């Protein structure tokens, strides 16, 4: 890990993200060249303007917010549990968010107001965070953490399936529930952007925590002895990670493995220091989800959650092998 690599990581990630943004604007059922994109953004080309402002821009904004939030929660959870393999998906926090969202749809709450969905997702995610805390204490072994995650994912999956099977008659609700279970960014609107926008605030709140998180990630008592208010820091970290995951789940459904893959790869690139890792992970997460969504858009039948899992599953297996 050379200092040069560390310095270049942020500009490179930023440049990559800009490239992906341009690509996301251009690619679709109707391909838009640079000229039409500019004309569409300015509103002089009406068709391009509709495609960009009503479809592609909200979708890419949601994709970026979702990616940034999942990667950031991964970073926070790994520091909290002092374990490389902790992530919102594996620990069942994402599944909690999904279960919350699905229950909200099943009981028709989502029809009352679109914004009840994120509230329900946050409640579900908080509940599973609480359960993880009880099942696996801090500094718990990898096995314990993962087993707790397995149990929670199974339990919450059952809740989701139950809601699904008990509403077989209402086709529309079932389709909505399936959407959340598979995770995707189809038909995202500006309302979804608004729903996900607190993620940006969460990212800003994360910034000053970088340094104390460094100390915490090497041992809670040691950190406390060096002057970190560990109890307070942990509360803020867990609250932020949970809310970030829940908001991402509320707008995009279950998008797995982002919180595991992105922080891990970037830590290999820029090192474990959080002041450097957090901004790179926010940008890297946004770029990763945007890239996966581009793939999902270009290949028929694929959805975002499927793409991230297709990449993340093998990566996770590789990680487990490497850990031995």
């Amino acid at each position, binding site marked *: 890990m050379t200092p040069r690599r560390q310095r270049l990581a942020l500009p490179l990630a930023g440049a990559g993200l800009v490239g992906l943004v341009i690509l996301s604007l251009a690619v679709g059922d109707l391909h838009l060249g640079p000229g039409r994109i500019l004309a569409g953004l300015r509103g002089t080309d009406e068709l391009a303007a509709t495609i960009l402002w009503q479809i592609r821009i909200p979708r890419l904004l949601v994709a970026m917010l979702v990616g940034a939030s999942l990667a950031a929660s991964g970073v926070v959870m790994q520091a909290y549990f*002092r*374990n*490389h393999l902790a992530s919102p998906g594996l620990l069942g926090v994402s599944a909690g968010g999904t279960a919350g969202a699905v229950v909200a749809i099943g009981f028709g709450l989502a029809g009352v107001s679109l914004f009840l969905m994120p509230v329900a997702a946050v409640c579900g995610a908080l509940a599973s965070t609480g359960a993880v805390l009880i099942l696996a204490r801090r*500094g718990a072994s990898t096995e314990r953490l993962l087993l707790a995650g397995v149990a929670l994912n199974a339990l919450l999956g059952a809740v989701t399936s139950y809601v699904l099977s008990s509403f077989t008659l209402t086709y529309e609700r079932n389709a909505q529930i399936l959407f959340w279970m598979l995770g995707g960014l189809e038909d995202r609107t500006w309302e979804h952007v608004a729903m996900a926008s607190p993620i940006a605030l969460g990212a800003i709140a994360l910034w000053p925590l970088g*340094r*104390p998180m*460094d*100390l915490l*990630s*090497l*041992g809670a*008592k*040691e950190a*406390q*002895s*060096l*002057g*970190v*208010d560990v109890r307070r820091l942990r509360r803020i970290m867990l609250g932020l990670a949970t809310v970030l995951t829940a908001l991402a789940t509320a707008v995009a459904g279950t998008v797995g493995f982002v919180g595991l893959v992105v922080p891990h790869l970037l*830590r290999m690139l820029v*090192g*474990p*220091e959080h002041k450097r890792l957090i901004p790179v992970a926010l940008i890297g997460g946004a770029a990763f989800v945007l890239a996966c969504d581009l793939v999902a858009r270009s290949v028929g039948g694929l959805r975002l959650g499927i793409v991230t899992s297709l990449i993340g599953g093998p990566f996770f297996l590789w990680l487990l092998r490497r850990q031995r």
Partner: protein
Amino acid sequence: MTAALAIHNAAVEGRMRPVSLELPAGKVVGLVGPNGSGKSTLLQVAAGLLDTEGTVAWAGRPIDEIPILERGRMATWVPQEAHFEFGFPVRSVIAQARFAHGDDGDGVEEALDRFDLRPLADRPVNRLSGGEKMRVLLARAWTTRAPLQLWDEPLAPLDVRHALEILMLAREIADVGSTVVLSLHDLRTAHCLDLVCVMDRGELRAIGKPDDVLTPDLLLDVFGVRARTAPGMILELPQTTLNSR
């Protein structure tokens, strides 16, 4: 003179019965006792890391009244074993000592030399051996410049030269007015200590000068061993001898 560390009736359920003690500044204090006798618990209580019923005071101030950040400048604690999950470079782990000083980075380079860590400065800390990790932890503790240093079995994983160097360093910090409390198993090191606290089954059994406290009777009673003086090999650093004042 106010005690550098004063503990009054501190107990931890199931691990330590009420303990009271006062340690003056400028001493190297050894904490001895069989496995599970409460040495680590007492050190963590002294460091303010475990909740207890009693009171703990540093330099005359009850620690409950000291803000956590300031505590990081007043006392520091070294765990028996480090669990480094992430590969922070050695230099940056040592620099964490200055968190409570606004991350000024003071003394980090000096620590690398003092603890023989210069060749490892850029190596990831999770790849080091047990003894090397302990030296990193001690280097970090030393770099805080905290006047109360609480070290949990610092010598156990170290090779003989590094162990002697750590004892010499403890003496050096004590000579400028700090207090070093360290738990240890090798009673033959006791002659390097100013004071010894003997823990037994969660109780403070005795405290005093090593020669007064570590009598054959006590050793037999607490540790179940017979102490006998016999000619043997003495190991010391080539340039110095270690003696208690």
